[in-house]
């Protein structure tokens, strides 16, 4: 703001200004008011997010007793231990597979549904409501319903398959199918939210672009490729990141459908942390895994900011 030579403005102030000297107290007035408004948030974030995050880092370097008190410093041994542990490696593989199953399918299905629901047709409001309904479904309720649908004896999914001539699938009993089953449940749950966000993105696109394309005689598919998808890219990028992060954090469906089994096939990372910490009281190794989860989510969010930021300008 200030330059080395005296500017016209400074000169004028010297001539006609009676610049009131503001005390330190007066100068920081805005800061103090702002802090008053921000205090609740900052306090809560500190206690329940920043402090525990640091504590997690701290704990991950220690062996702990059952009360979670750090008892023995072990350095990176917890990390070494979990990285060598076959249970953890299996858990990582399952988690990555699970992410691979859920993210693309959730987004593609939601995009498809949103494109359908973006048409201006009679009764479209009703369809939008139905298609967004899974957003209101809790993990527990969804998981319990799907537990029933997957059930080996009373589950109706297998009945359907039998009707169309496919033999029953051992949904939750077979290690490979179990992960897929959980993925199906998750995709179903994700759809509502992703649908709603993408639909919002579609509705933000300027209608004139389409009208103009219609006049030019562009076909639907061409409009989709040249207008809809490019204009929607920030929204899509956002929802992909969110779905990624949510997938990494899946817990309830595992707890209700499989408890991590069979044969540890569905022991997703948050469930593994939960088991280590709250069933086996291994707070040290659990914290080390929590740290790995943090790094994954952190990286994804940074990615979202980096790319998302650039593309949002587009709108």
């Amino acid at each position: 703001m200030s330059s080395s030579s005296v500017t016209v403005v400074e000169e004028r102030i010297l001539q006609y200004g009676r610049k009131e000297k503001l005390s330190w107290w007066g100068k920081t007035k805005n800061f103090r008011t702002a802090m008053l408004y921000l205090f609740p948030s900052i306090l809560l974030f500190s206690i329940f997010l920043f402090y525990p995050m640091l504590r997690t880092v701290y704990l991950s370097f220690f062996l702990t007793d059952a009360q979670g008190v750090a008892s023995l410093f072990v350095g990176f041994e917890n990390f070494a231990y979990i990285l060598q542990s076959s249970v953890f490696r299996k858990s990582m593989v399952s988690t990555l597979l699970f992410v691979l199953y859920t993210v693309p399918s959730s987004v593609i299905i939601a995009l498809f549904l949103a494109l359908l629901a973006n048409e201006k047709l009679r009764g479209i409001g009703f369809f939008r409501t139905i298609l967004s309904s899974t957003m209101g479904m809790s993990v527990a309720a969804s998981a319990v319903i799907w537990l029933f649908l997957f059930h080996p004896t009373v589950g109706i999914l297998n009945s359907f398959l039998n009707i169309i001539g496919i033999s029953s699938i051992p949904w939750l009993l077979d290690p490979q199918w179990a992960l897929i089953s959980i993925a199906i449940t998750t995709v179903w749950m994700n759809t509502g939210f992703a649908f709603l966000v993408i639909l919002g993105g579609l509705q933000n696109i300027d209608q004139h672009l389409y009208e103009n394309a219609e006049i030019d005689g562009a076909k639907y598919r061409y409009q989709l490729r040249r207008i809809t998808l490019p204009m929607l890219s920030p929204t899509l990028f956002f929802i992909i990141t969110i779905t990624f992060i949510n997938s990494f954090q899946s817990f309830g469906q595992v707890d209700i459908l499989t408890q991590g089994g069979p044969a540890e096939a569905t022991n997703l990372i948050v469930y593994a942390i939960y088991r280590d910490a709250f069933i086996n009281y291994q707070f040290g190794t659990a914290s080390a895994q929590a740290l790995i989860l943090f790094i994954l989510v952190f990286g994804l969010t940074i990615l979202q900011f980096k790319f998302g930021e650039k593309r949002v300008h587009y709108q």
Partner: protein
Amino acid sequence: MKKVTLSHVSKSYDQQSFAVDDVNVEINPGEFFVLVGPSGCGKSTMLRMIAGLETITAGDLSIGENRVNHMPPSKREISMVFQNYALYPHLTVEENILFGLKARKMNKIERNERCQEAADLLGLTPYLQRKPRELSGGQRQRVALARTVVSQRPICLLDEPLSNLDAKLRGYMRTEIRQLQKKLGITMIYVTHDQVEAMTMGDRMMVLKDGKVQQVGTPLSIYNQPKNLFVATFIGAPPMNTLPLSLSQDRSLMFMNEKISLATPVSWRTLLNTKDHFHLGVRPEQVFPAEEVLEPSIKFDVTIEDTEVLGNETHFTFTLGKATWKAKWQGQWPKNIGDLLSLAVPLEAAYLFDTDTEEIFYSGQVQLSEGVQVL
């Protein structure tokens, strides 16, 4: 009642240049004072400094005898009307009008009394229970004015209050605001970019450009005796015609371009003794048919390039040298594009401006400035 005094008031946002540059003026109690200028000239900034919504970089602002540079807006005993009215969309008209009084914890009986009065005055009584979005632009404007009325504060600041209205309503509201001000006897400081508003409403007006005061005075004195080329062309519609002229060595000829020249009127020769160039300015209503002008004048022939017949008056557009000029004649004239016109400008209707400083150095009207009847 208190006067508003600005002395050396300046505002700078970037520490390098001035948005408002050394303004000195005294606004009298009960005066309708207009700040007028093109957009970006600093008029709104000035108003907002008076309101206390902007800080003052240098200089002193006083209301009455007190220096108020650092007084918060609410203590300055002012009310303000904004361009988009600043009505609270979630409150009814009545609640909007009473908003300030409630904030000041005035007792209910007096509050309602004042609201009734203001609503009657502005014809808002039937709308008191409506929400702002159910009102027309003009009605919203009146609600904003009613807020000023109930506040009973002696100074009212208005920031382009009519610019969101259509032309017809604007004309009507001009009179209404003006009458309101006279009835209440308050000081109004009014910002506009519309010179017609400034001319018709103001007791006095201040013309601003690039943050600098160009001229302060009554509308007529500014119209008749503009201080410089900018004021001359900014005030009046159609604007004053101007023409850059260069003089021959002996000052006997005035060249419009390389070829065409006019004879310099004898009475101007001494005046122009020291100049090589100057600008000639003539109001369109002072460009007459040559045969009507008997007094000393400048005469020239032109070809009509455009005509606008406005019912009771006719405008002709033509080119003179490098400039486009207009002539405004009373009545309807059956002339076509391409027709030749012989025109004359009485010498006493001419304004001469210095080319470099753009300041006026001669006006034929100086002598008739008292009993003006040029309009």
